């Protein structure tokens, strides 16, 4: 007869070993190393919590300071490889295999380590995809997570940065894994229970908050006239005609410009209430003027944003907040919302090729995906109609039966034809292909596939790829907005002009926009200070963004 309780028994052994170094559920910080050695086994699948925002940094350092003689060959399954400790773990041989989603600040080092064979790569995922695999074939044996506070029973309060925690805990704890949380402090009673104590086995009091990166703060002072022009084109040429009310914005200055143009330019176009009413979006500081002027009905957040806590708490009509008043974020739910309940994703990218594939990878950096490919894709499982979705579907397949026609999610890539240091946005061949070749990957890391992208917006105009009827048309539509890049200058001018006549390409003048009107005075806020003042002092920007 089989023993059907082997995992529970093994868990019991680990917990017993862990309790040797704990008082109840509380692990004293000096014992952290010995404790981790006791509960983690070589070859374990370990989820070290951290994404593009919050980080279980104390636990990451503790794990990295173990000796490979004690623990080795771990398989790390985690959203973000962001802290240097995350890679030290591989450098030391404590971990060997990696499945992840995002690597922002470590993108160059992770590439070097992949080339050097220090890391055995499983795959680079989108957030939602990795979360899904936690429940199928990448379930962690141990989860090292981060929260704001805990009580002695292990009930956790995550504050506004709940983010990935419920997902990680759900997958680990209910499948006989060990959950260890670092918290800023242990309290008698937590302000609200984000994670029930039953699911949390151990708690470490860090005596300082976990690290959070203010990734979604864009200083309005850095927005250029060209970015404003692209924002005007997007608002008048896409938001308005499709009536986009439910959407997600990527991070970047182009979308920040859009957010800051809503109360000024958008208002002038009479779009208030007709576009941008519901968002799957982090609390971008650049959203403050639009929220304050009554544009936005509702925002659900993946995570929080540093400095926005008090503002969000004071705007519970717009944001999701708990009984304690603070934001409740949830990355898995928000990613799902971004995929299924939004009609548009708009974001910037680094490279777009002639087919319309786009990528943020360069040959020496692997930045990962985060959530953009999920948001920036057309959900085949969607069944509910909406005006923009149906309209986009009709543009893509005009001659078909409307009742049987799929709608299309609007997936918009926005940017200037030349990026930093005059590097062109448009390329013959994505650097991602070269990277895939060098690393012998089956898939090139493409952020948004060409069959998902519907529009490309640059300062030269908008290319509507839904209306292209052939590969050649698509290429010329892309060349036709590629400005003075090599790709743009090699356009077939006659064909581009024909596409323009058909409305596939729209120039600023076709939309009644004078590029000379793209002025910074159009921005509802021109500095972080303006944002702070617009929030009535509720937004408290991090020091590095201040100039007062």
């Amino acid at each position, binding site marked *: 007869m089989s023993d059907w309780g082997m995992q529970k028994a093994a868990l019991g052994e680990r917990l017993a070993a862990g309790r040797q170094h704990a008082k109840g559920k509380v692990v004293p910080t000096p014992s952290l190393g010995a404790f981790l050695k006791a509960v983690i086994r070589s070859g374990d699948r370990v989820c070290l919590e951290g994404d593009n925002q919050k980080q279980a940094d104390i636990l990451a350092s503790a794990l990295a300071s173990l000796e490979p003689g004690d623990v080795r060959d771990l398989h790390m399954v985690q959203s973000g490889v962001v802290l240097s400790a995350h890679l030290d773990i591989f450098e030391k041989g404590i971990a060997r295999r990696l499945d992840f989603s995002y690597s922002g600040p470590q993108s160059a080092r992770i590439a070097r380590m992949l080339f050097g064979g220090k890391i055995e790569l499983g795959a680079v995922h989108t957030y939602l995809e990795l979360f899904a695999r936690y429940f199928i074939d990448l379930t962690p044996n141990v989860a090292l997570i981060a929260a704001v506070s805990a009580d002695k029973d292990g009930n956790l309060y995550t504050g506004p940065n709940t983010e990935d925690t419920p997902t990680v805990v759900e997958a680990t704890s209910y499948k006989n894994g060990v959950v260890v949380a670092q918290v800023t402090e242990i309290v008698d009673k937590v302000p609200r229970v984000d994670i029930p104590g039953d699911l949390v086995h151990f708690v470490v009091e860090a005596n300082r908050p976990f690290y959070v990166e203010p990734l979604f703060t864009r200083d309005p*002072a850095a927005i250029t006239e060209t970015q404003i022009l692209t924002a005007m084109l997007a608002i008048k040429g896409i938001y308005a005609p499709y009536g986009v009310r439910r959407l997600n914005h990527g991070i970047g200055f182009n979308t920040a410009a859009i957010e800051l143009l809503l109360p000024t330019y958008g208002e002038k176009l009479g779009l208030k209430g007709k576009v941008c009413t519901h968002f799957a979006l982090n609390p971008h500081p650049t959203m403050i003027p639009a929220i304050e002027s009554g544009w936005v009905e509702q925002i659900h957040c993946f995570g929080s944003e540093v400095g926005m806590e008090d503002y969000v708490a004071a705007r519970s009509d717009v944001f999701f907040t708990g009984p304690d008043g603070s934001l409740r974020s949830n990355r898995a739910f928000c990613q799902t919302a971004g995929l299924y309940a939004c009609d548009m994703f708009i974001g910037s990218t680094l490279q777009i090729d002639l087919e319309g594939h786009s990528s943020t990878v360069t040959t020496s950096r692997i930045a990962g995906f985060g959530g953009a490919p999920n948001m920036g894709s057309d959900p085949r499982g969607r069944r509910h109609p909406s005006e923009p979705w149906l309209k986009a579907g009709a543009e893509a397949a005009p001659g078909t039966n409307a009742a049987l026609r799929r709608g299309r999610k609007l997936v918009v890539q926005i940017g200037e034809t030349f990026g930093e240091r005059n590097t062109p946005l448009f390329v013959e061949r994505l650097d991602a292909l070269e990277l895939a070749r060098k690393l012998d990957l089956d898939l090139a890391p493409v952020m948004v596939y060409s069959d998902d992208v519907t529009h490309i917006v640059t300062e030269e105009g908008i290319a509507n790829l839904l209306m292209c009827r052939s590969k050649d048309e698509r290429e010329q539509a892309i060349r036709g907005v590629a400005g003075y890049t090599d790709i743009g200058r090699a356009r077939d001018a006659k064909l581009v002009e024909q596409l323009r006549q058909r409305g596939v390409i729209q120039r600023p003048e076709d939309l009644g926009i004078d590029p000379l009107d793209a002025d*910074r*005075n159009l921005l509802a806020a*021109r*500095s972080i*200070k303006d944002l*702070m*003042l617009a929030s009535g*002092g509720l937004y*408290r920007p991090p*020091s*590095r*963004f*201040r*100039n*007062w």
Partner: protein
Amino acid sequence: MSQVAANTVSLSWYEASARQRIDALVDAGSFSEFIGPELREISPHLSIFDLPEQFDDGIVVGRGRLDGTPVLIAAQEGRFMGGAFGEVHGAKLTGLLRAAHALKEDVLILFDTGGVRLQEANAGELAIAEIMRAVIEARRAGINVVGLIGGRAGCYGGGSLIAGTCSRLIISEQGRLSVSGPEVIETNRGIEEFDSRDRALVWRTMGGKHRYLIGAADVFVDDEALAFRRAAIDALKMHGRCDVAVLEAEQARLARRLQRFGEAEDAVEIWQTLGIGSPTDLPALPTGAFLRAANDRETADDAR
């Protein structure tokens, strides 16, 4: 009869270019430039370093009217080489101040500078010295020399020493007035003493609010060209002297500052000593509330 036509352009001083600032400051259409860009009096030294030149070498000088009154104006362009003083740049301001003395016309200096331009450091340093001397000579002849500080580059290095010779200083929150820049202090003293990337620290140590509170600047205005214009009009109505009595008063004023605040570790302590209720909130206050809170600030009237 001169016609007074107030300009109504609304413009962020911090963001504006030197030329935009002048246009917004003076009576509409009244400005005429001396040695304009069409004369291409560029720096003869930047090409040695293969650096781009600007036709006006980063400073616009000329004559306009402010509320009907003729005034000589110099505006530095903080985005070109950080608004730094080179040979030509500096000589344009020196000439303007000497002209002010000769013609008995007041001067406005729109500072926006990181100090001396290193690629022509000796010429820049001497220009600073010549300008300071020219300011004092003009002031002793009864001329007002008013400094306006609120640009991107701040007013650093030798520029801050010139500002110290002015009869009156107008500053906005964005304005910074300091000899050594944040990076220089960090390099010399270590990041423990001064973290140059901590912008809140930079501003509360060198920024407009702090400078106004300790009496290093006389007027605090919004980051708005019209606010600078109004303050400049008022400043020109004052009659600044520059004699022994004024310097004696300044000596007492600066000695008192050392006595009152010399032990402070941080600006917040100084603001506390000034009797400001919740000093840590001060940086976030909008202008009106700040000016009310600043009621008991140190002043420099007749002591500058």
